[in-house]
């Protein structure tokens, strides 16, 4: 059950972020003031990918809650941070981002830090 929940958390987080990143980059950059963020809410309601990404976020949130109910937080946090690696790989393959050696190394070092911090 733990591993199933963990897989759902990671898959849903990755799906949500990929959809958001893809769709937000296609839009013109959003101004970050009160009005800009309010209009962003409106944009979300009109874009299928963004609605889907929020739905995935909800799935990931509730699965994470269920996960920490049974598994210790010191397992749940670093394990779900594994979504990091999954997402970085998908960002390169699907979103065509250029993950340079420096960026990949940085992501790995951060992951190592999270694992140590959560112990």
């Amino acid at each position: 059950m733990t591993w199933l929940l963990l897989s759902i958390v990671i898959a849903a987080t990755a799906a949500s972020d990929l959809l958001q990143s893809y769709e937000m980059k296609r839009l013109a950059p959003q101004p970050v003031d009160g009005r800009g963020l309010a209009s962003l809410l409106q944009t979300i309601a009109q874009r299928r990918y963004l609605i889907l990404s929020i739905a995935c976020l909800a799935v990931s949130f509730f699965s994470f809650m269920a996960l920490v109910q049974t598994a210790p937080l010191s397992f749940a946090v670093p394990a779900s941070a594994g979504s990091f690696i999954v997402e970085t790989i998908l960002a390169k393959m699907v979103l065509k981002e250029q993950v340079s050696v420096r960026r990949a190394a940085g992501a790995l070092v951060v992951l190592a830090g999270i694992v140590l911090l959560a112990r």
Partner: protein
Amino acid sequence: MAYRTYSLLGVFVLLRALGNLSLAWGTKHFPETLAANPLSYLRAMLSPAVAVGIAMLILAMLLRMAVLGVADLSFVLPLTAIGYVFAALLGKFILQEDVTPERWTGTALIFIGVALVGSTPQNTTPYGGKARGESK
């Protein structure tokens, strides 16, 4: 432009940490057991600390989405991991938890990783930052 992205991500991380704190505080002080029935979730959402927490988390999500419009996902993700450090510090100073040498090492590693990723170009796809000039 890059400076703006960093500061927005900083605000995002702060908002998320405070939102989670408010949410945790609110649910801990809520008299009913949450898992029992969905209605108690709804009632909890109306209590002030929980409502404030949720509002902050929604704002944080919108901010992050706006940043994703101009910066790569593989850039934003590691940078926002600085939030784990915040959580550890909040745990130390508010909940008086011990911070072991192992955890300090973890903190240092996160800072090093963030510095590495933060020094790469924030947008490497044809969209985002550059779309500004092309699309309108």
